[in-house]
């Protein structure tokens, strides 16, 4: 799916429309950055509550499809700036990590 569809499914606000045409598939939930680089598949949605600038660096290195900040967490300004610079999709949702991941999985019919 594309960014706009993802935002709708997750009732999320798009903070950075970094790459609206990128195909986004699957997901990974986690806050330890090295776990994300170890396990998150290329092009996936990354659900996290971490909001510092290093999140953008990890998303860039690991070719993450979209960062979704859960639990209503807002990005720190440097994170937003870095996502703009690197064309990374960044969203926020009021859903918690479990809720957001379930929502996406149900929508993609993976449960």
């Amino acid at each position, binding site marked *: 799916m594309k960014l706009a569809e993802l935002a709708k499914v997750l009732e999320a606000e798009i903070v950075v429309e970094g790459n609206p045409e990128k195909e986004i598939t699957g997901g990974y939930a986690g806050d*330890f*950055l*090295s776990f994300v680089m170890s396990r998150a598949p290329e092009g996936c949605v990354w659900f996290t509550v*971490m909001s*510092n600038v*290093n999140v953008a*660096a990890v998303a*860039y*290195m690991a*070719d993450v499809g979209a960062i979704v900040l859960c639990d209503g967490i807002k990005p720190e300004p440097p994170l937003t700036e870095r996502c703009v610079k690197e064309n990374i999709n960044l969203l926020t949702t009021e859903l918690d990590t479990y809720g957001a991941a379930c929502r996406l999985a149900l929508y993609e019919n993976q449960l």
Partner: protein
Amino acid sequence: MSEQTRISLEFDVEGDNFVSAGKASEAVKGNLKMLGLPPTIIRRAAIVMYEGEINMVIHAKGGKAYVDITDKDISITLKDEGPGIENIELAMQEGYSTAPDAIRALGFGAGMGLPNMKKYSDNMEIESEVGKGTTVRMKINIQPDSEGQQQ
């Protein structure tokens, strides 16, 4: 790339700066993209480089990164004059970390850095002396159909 193509890059990595952390890796990834290498190769190189760079930022007050790109492989050497690694075998275990709490609060220090570097490189060597520093050498082979250890 032709047989003779060879690109050498060199970076200074600043210690304890978590805003600039990743700059060298970002530059390397940019270069690899420009060379048109396969995305899976680029992704692996970016991840191992970033993990190594972060390790130098966290543990070693920075260091130097040297990257050599040929038509055959990408060689990454990370050299620091930090405290060294006392027990490399232990440091290689997933989940083992000596990072302080403040670092863990940023999302680092999961004890997955070195394991990730091993996982995503085709070859990795660590030389370390306590009190002197650490040198990590990693190699990623470039082959048209190489999926390597990529998952």
